[in-house]
């Protein structure tokens, strides 16, 4: 008995609507993030991550309103990310009911934002999201770089060194997405997950590429992740959260059933 590894379903939300769809049996409105969050809460999810992909900054009021509604009826931790640029953005989301806020691109442009917000609100609510891509040639020592703009723009920053720096600045958790694997259903990039998990003293969430339940277990057993995040395998009803937990537990992983 000890600390359980976590399963985190992720909702991509654009202008207050879940995109890529969710296909739960009997759900009334597959685009309503509040209804979907409620379902995942009932289904035994350990946390929920809400990623705001709304392009315009003006529509962020919608996001704040949605976070408020979710926080009123979902009593598990809620992480909100996407478009977070300032200490003020973080304050607004925390006040709306987010338990953690995820900082991505803004951390690259302004690393001191991580330190300022951790000092101000506590490390426990500051997640740094890292989008990494392999940049080594075959036969070379593995190396991953941070990419922005959905994996199109290289930054030249080494992903493992960056994760260490973010932990030093006060991040409480790393959300690591492999841009090579995201959307492929071929499983996590276990090498980068393990390299970062082993390098930092804070928890790491593995993301990008989950296509089946073995992938989730591998993220923990081989990638050394503390939590695994997935979207489509849960949204489209391929697997339930309960099935995922049962499978991971059968692989010897401590889970909250």
């Amino acid at each position, binding site marked *: *008995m*000890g*600390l*359980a*590894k*976590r399963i985190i379903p992720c909702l991509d939300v654009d202008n207050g609507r879940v995109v890529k769809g969710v296909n739960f049996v009997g759900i009334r409105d597959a685009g309503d993030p509040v209804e979907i969050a409620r379902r995942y*809460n009932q289904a035994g999810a*350990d946390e929920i991550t809400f990623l705001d992909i709304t392009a315009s900054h003006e529509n962020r009021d919608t996001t704040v309103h949605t976070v*408020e509604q979710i*926080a*009123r*009826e979902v*009593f*598990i*931790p809620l992480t909100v990310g996407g478009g977070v640029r300032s200490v003020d953005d973080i304050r607004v989301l*925390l*006040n*709306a*009911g*987010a*338990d953690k806020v995820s900082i991505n691109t803004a951390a690259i442009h302004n690393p001191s934002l991580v330190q300022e917000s951790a000092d101000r*609100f*506590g*490390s*426990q*609510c500051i997640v740094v999201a890292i989008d990494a891509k392999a940049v080594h040639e075959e036969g070379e020592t593995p190396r991953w770089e941070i990419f922005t703009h959905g994996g199109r723009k290289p930054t030249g920053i080494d992903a493992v060194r960056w994760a260490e720096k973010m932990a030093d600045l006060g991040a*409480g*958790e790393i959300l690591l997405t492999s841009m090579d694997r995201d959307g492929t259903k071929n499983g996590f990039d276990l090498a980068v997950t393990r390299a970062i*998990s*082993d390098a930092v*003293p*804070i*928890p*790491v969430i593995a993301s990008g590429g989950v296509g089946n339940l073995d992938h989730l277990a591998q993220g923990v057993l081989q990638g*050394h992740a*503390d*939590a695994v995040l997935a979207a489509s395998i849960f949204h489209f009803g391929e697997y339930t959260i309960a099935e995922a937990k049962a499978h991971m537990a059968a692989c010897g992983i401590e889970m*909250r059933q």
Partner: protein
Amino acid sequence: MAPQRVAVIDYGMGNLHSVESALQHAGNCDVVVTHDAAVVAAADRVVFPGVGAIGDCMAEIKRLGFDRLISEVVASGKPLLGICVGMQAMMEGSEESGGTECLGLFEGVVQRFPGGVDKQGNTLKIPHMGWNTVQQTMRHPLWYGIENNARFYFVHSYCVTPTKPEAQAGGCEYGLPFAAAIARDNIFATQFHPEKSHDSGLQLLTNFLNWNGSC
């Protein structure tokens, strides 16, 4: 029965809406998030939350005179629930923030998790973040209807070990054993977040709303 008046003490450290929403969900109560000592004094029961660094929390508690207010609540016999840093603040002191003097409602200090590796050789990440099991080490009305070793949601880097083992109401382990909950008289305090711990957490809050303040 008239709704219970619950005061959630707000001393400017973080969002308290989750606590408020969860209490409203847990039972028939009027919850007010307040920094007004008179409102706290008029409430039937009091919640003392806290997040972030304890040095900042204690500085605000003292600046606002809430150290006296908490003592008055304790003396009044009203049920008092501490959560997370609220529980840590009830100890004598913390080694966080270069050493912080706390309220001294319980003997013992708050120390940082040592980290290291567990018995299986896994690295113990800090913060201790996620769902861990809580062993009920004291019979207490706040555990009513909650299974022994149920999981609750934790997120903290420092932990409490009371000097008197009989003050511990619930135990947990993460590299070392520590107190998941402490209790005496009309005080119950949890290191975990009941407001984020799904059904078990809501049950604990329901129990708090039903509790008469004696062990």
